[in-house]
């Protein structure tokens, strides 16, 4: 009886077998996701962070290096039997803070490591290292923080910080990952790719407790971390630190350039901050107070501040007039105070003398010749000629690297401004509505003309080179090959004939006997030009640009001190001290040093 049921039972066995075989076929053969899940189970990606490149000064003195710090990582699932109280006291956390961080870690992943405490300085870490063993689920990974051997150059170095989600989105190279550090400004930003190196990755197999079981696929997918390339700056750190000392307590800039190469020897933005404040775990806090400082220490004045150049611009006017042939090298022009107020005494001036005494009236007359070159004396003709003359002038001025960024290897370089005919068309509502008398303040570097201090220093370099320049740059060489962007080796011409330079330079040489007597140094021929940039908001700004020595110049410099009045006083003294420091290596006039350090320029 019931014999047929044996077939039903056997059929049941076969049905189950078929169900199992099909289900297994679906998860083992058809579905890839289990294989991937298995890999992500056992494979832990361990990132080896490369050392960021070191930064040296031109004499190979170490300026920026790395110090080990540690990130405390947590794998939430592995946290067991944690003595929270002991943990909090070891790492100096509040209980509330601990909970917040833990929740964040859980939200990210329960089995993947996430940063629990970032950038523990190595000396702090040494104290807790032994206790770490007792805290299951926590481990430390080595990172580095930037350290600076001097408290200067902050605006050159810039700083690094954790990459923002916006930067991550914009990163087309797909190199960066959340939590990576990236140069945010300064040299750290402009040479980010060279400095950062290449991160290494190790794939390790781990068991369920996260214990290492050896390399994944024999380590064939692993890559080594490649340290970043070192950078040698053109900065002379002694000169730099001396310049910063002199600028302490003042608002302004110093830029010194080696004329023969365009290498920047000193680069001061004052006031600044200690670069060590913007590294490590206190970054956030310190950044807040620095960024909100009313004196704007983060504002990189040599590149970003733009001022009317004042009298130093007369040099360019003189050169253009000579080149245009509207002025003879020894042509004398009678000047009195009829056109414009003047410090220079009335009398006959040639261009050399006009530079020496900074005659306003001379350069107004010369600039009028430039603008109205072919014009008849009637008004209509002058209205027609002004845009043509200004256009030519604009082209020539632009050859001096003005009106557009020079292309220095630091971010946020301002362009300055050289007025074009179109600008006045706009201001005076149309062509033929303005003429020389509307724009004559340009003659003496006032009005709609703006330069930043790096352009002023570059002008000094152009004078030193008698007509050409190299784009100022802060890096001297990158890596072991001392690589440098070829654009910094390219000679830029001003297209002013060399024969026009001697008269102007002779005038500049005599400046130290006229408007800038404080700049005079025994045995060093300084060629300079003072400027006093009018400031409608307060005291005038003090400007001085110079190069020295006259023959085979070694240094070209611009000093800009805000609200310090007459250029012959604060700026000239500072520039002269720096020139002496660089060329002679010592200061022979301590009284002027004292004067500058004291900083009472207005009396």
């Amino acid at each position, binding site marked *: 009886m019931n014999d047929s049921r044996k077939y039903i039972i056997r059929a049941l*066995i076969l049905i189950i077998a078929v169900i199992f075989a099909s289900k297994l076929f679906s998860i083992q053969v058809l579905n890839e996701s289990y294989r991937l899940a*298995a890999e992500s189970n056992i494979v832990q990606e361990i990132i080896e962070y490369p050392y960021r490149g070191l930064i040296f000064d031109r004499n190979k003195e170490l300026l920026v290096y790395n110090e080990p710090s540690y990130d405390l990582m947590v794998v939430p699932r592995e946290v067991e039997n944690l003595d929270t109280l002991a943990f909090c006291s070891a790492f100096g956390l509040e209980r509330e803070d601990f909970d917040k961080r833990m929740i964040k870690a859980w939200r990210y992943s329960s089995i993947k490591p996430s940063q629990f405490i970032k950038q523990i300085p190595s000396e702090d870490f040494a104290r807790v290292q032994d206790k770490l063993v007792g805290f299951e689920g926590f481990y430390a990974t080595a990172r580095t923080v930037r350290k600076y051997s001097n408290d200067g150059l902050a605006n050159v170095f810039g700083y690094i910080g954790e990459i923002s989600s916006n930067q991550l989105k914009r990163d087309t190279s797909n190199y960066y990952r959340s939590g990576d550090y990236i140069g945010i400004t300064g040299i750290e930003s402009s040479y980010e790719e060279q400095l950062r190196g290449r991160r290494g990755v190790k794939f390790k197999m781990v*068991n369920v407790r996260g214990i290492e079981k050896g390399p994944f696929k024999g380590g064939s997918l692993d890559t080594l971390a490649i340290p970043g390339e070192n950078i040698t700056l053109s900065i002379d750190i002694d000169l730099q630190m001396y310049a910063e000392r002199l600028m302490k307590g003042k608002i302004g800039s110093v830029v010194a350039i080696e004329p023969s190469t365009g290498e920047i020897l000193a680069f001061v933005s004052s006031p600044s901050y200690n670069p060590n404040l913007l590294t490590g775990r206190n970054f956030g806090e310190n950044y807040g107070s620095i960024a909100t400082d009313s004196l704007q220490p983060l504002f990189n004045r040599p590149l970003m501040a733009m001022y009317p150049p004042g009298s130093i611009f007369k040099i360019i006017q003189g050169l253009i007039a000579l080149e245009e042939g509207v002025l003879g090298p020894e042509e004398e022009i009678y000047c009195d105070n009829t056109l414009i107020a003047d410090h220079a005494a009335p009398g006959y001036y040639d261009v050399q003398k006009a530079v020496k005494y900074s005659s306003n009236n001379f350069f107004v007359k010369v600039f009028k010749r430039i603008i109205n070159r072919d014009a008849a004396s009637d008004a209509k003709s002058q209205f027609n000629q002004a845009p043509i003359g200004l256009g030519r002038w604009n082209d020539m001025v632009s050859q001096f690297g003005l009106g557009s960024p020079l292309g220095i290897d630091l971010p946020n370089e301002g362009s300055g401004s050289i007025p074009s005919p179109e600008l006045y068309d706009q201001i005076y509502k149309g062509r033929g509505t303005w003429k020389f008398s509307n724009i004559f303040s340009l003659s003496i570097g006032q009005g709609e003309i703006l330069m930043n201090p790096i352009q002023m220093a570059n002008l000094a370099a152009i004078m030193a080179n008698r007509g050409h320049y190299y784009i100022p740059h802060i890096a001297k060489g990158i890596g072991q090959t001392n690589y440098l962007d070829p654009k910094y080796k390219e000679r830029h011409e001003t297209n002013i004939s060399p024969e026009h330079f001697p008269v102007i330079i002779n005038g500049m040489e005599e400046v130290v006997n006229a408007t800038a007597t404080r700049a005079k140094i025994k045995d060093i021929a300084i060629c300079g030009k003072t400027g006093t940039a009018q400031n409608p908001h307060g005291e005038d700004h003090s400007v001085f640009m110079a190069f020295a020595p006259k023959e085979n110049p070694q240094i070209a410099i611009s000093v800009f001190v805000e609200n310090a009045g007459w250029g012959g006083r604060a700026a000239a003294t500072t520039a002269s001290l720096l020139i002496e420091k660089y060329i002679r290596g010592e200061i022979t006039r301590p009284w002027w040093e004292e004067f500058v350090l004291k900083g009472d320029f207005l009396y």
Partner: protein
Amino acid sequence: MVGGICFERRFFVLSSRGKIWDRIDWITVILYLILVFWGWFNIYAAVYDEELAVSMFSLSTNSGKQLIWIGTSFLLILGVMMLDFKFYDSFSYVFYALMILLLLAVLGTGTIVSGSKSWFQVGGFRLQPSEFTKFATALAIAKFLGTVNVKLDNAKNQLIAAGLIGVPIVLIILQGDLGSAMVFGAFVLVYYREGLSPILFALGLGVIALFIVSLLVDQTLIFIVTGSLALIFIGLSIKNFKKILVIIGMAVFVVGMVKSVDFIMTDVLKPHQRNRVVSLFNPDADPLGVGWNVTQSKIAIGSGGVFGKGFLNGTQTKYDFVPEQSTDFIFCTLGEEHGWVGSVLLITLFSILLVRISIIAERQKSRFARVYGYGVLAVLFFHFMVNIAMTIGLFPVIGIPLPFFSYGGSSLWSFTILLFILLNLDAHRMQVLMH
């Protein structure tokens, strides 16, 4: 029954040795050996640690210990085969009663292992009486149904049959070992073969279906659907009073069933058991908590691909992602290292073994032997089905081993005895009528 010494003489007579090895079902024996040794290899793979590279024979590992269990099992086989086949028939109830006593004893004096009080600790070894109750119960059922004129068509016999299964189930549930208790439910298959009404059998399946539905669907929804269906059917058969009563009765049964499932889930099952049931239906709800076992088990098996990662190359099992990998989850190791091909080979081996047991059972001359054969089939089938189903996520995680394959002395001994009693009976099937 006769006195001890006396039946020793009567029953410990050796059957002529050469003959029993000639008459034994070698197909089954070979299948058994393949499974046992393949299992042993997999246990070694499951506990293998590259760094230690301990030998397969080292007694410090499960694979070394399993070798001892395998060796002792062979001794047991000799013992089981040498005993007179009539001994099992005569002493069925004695075995059964003895096992029930042991189950009671373990409740009192047992050792608790992973939440279940079902172990006797003897020195360094642990024994699990519930394992041995399986073959004892199979014998008892065979004895009962083998009795002349006992048929499963009346309530009294049905009740006794239910009782034979029910007593160990209750005792083992009391130990806290739901998984092992469920195994005894498998004997219903034997009753089905021996004439239990298919309606009762189908009803049982219906109850299981309803059980699953009531876990998945909100109670109120079931009540509403049941009520509406009942009203529709009552409306359709408005003139048939008897039919209406049946419909109402069924509706009440459904409501009662759903309510009792709710009661079982909240009040009877332990939290970890409840979670296992819940996670079966939605393992992704909490892949790192309750669903961890199933998820990791599926990952291990699923990552095996067609041909597997190769012997000792499984990463998921080797690095302990799968829990209980040498016992209940041994199939993961096989699935990961030998892939779909290996898995299907194992399923095929089991299917052949089960069908072979059915064939052996059917060719028995005595009803006792046939019923016992189906008892063996039921126990092995249930273990095989539930164990593999749970590792691939078709069934809740119930801690029962894969027969012959999983690590464990009690289970290997128990399955060996279970199977070889049948082979002993089968070897002597021609002598039954002569006796």
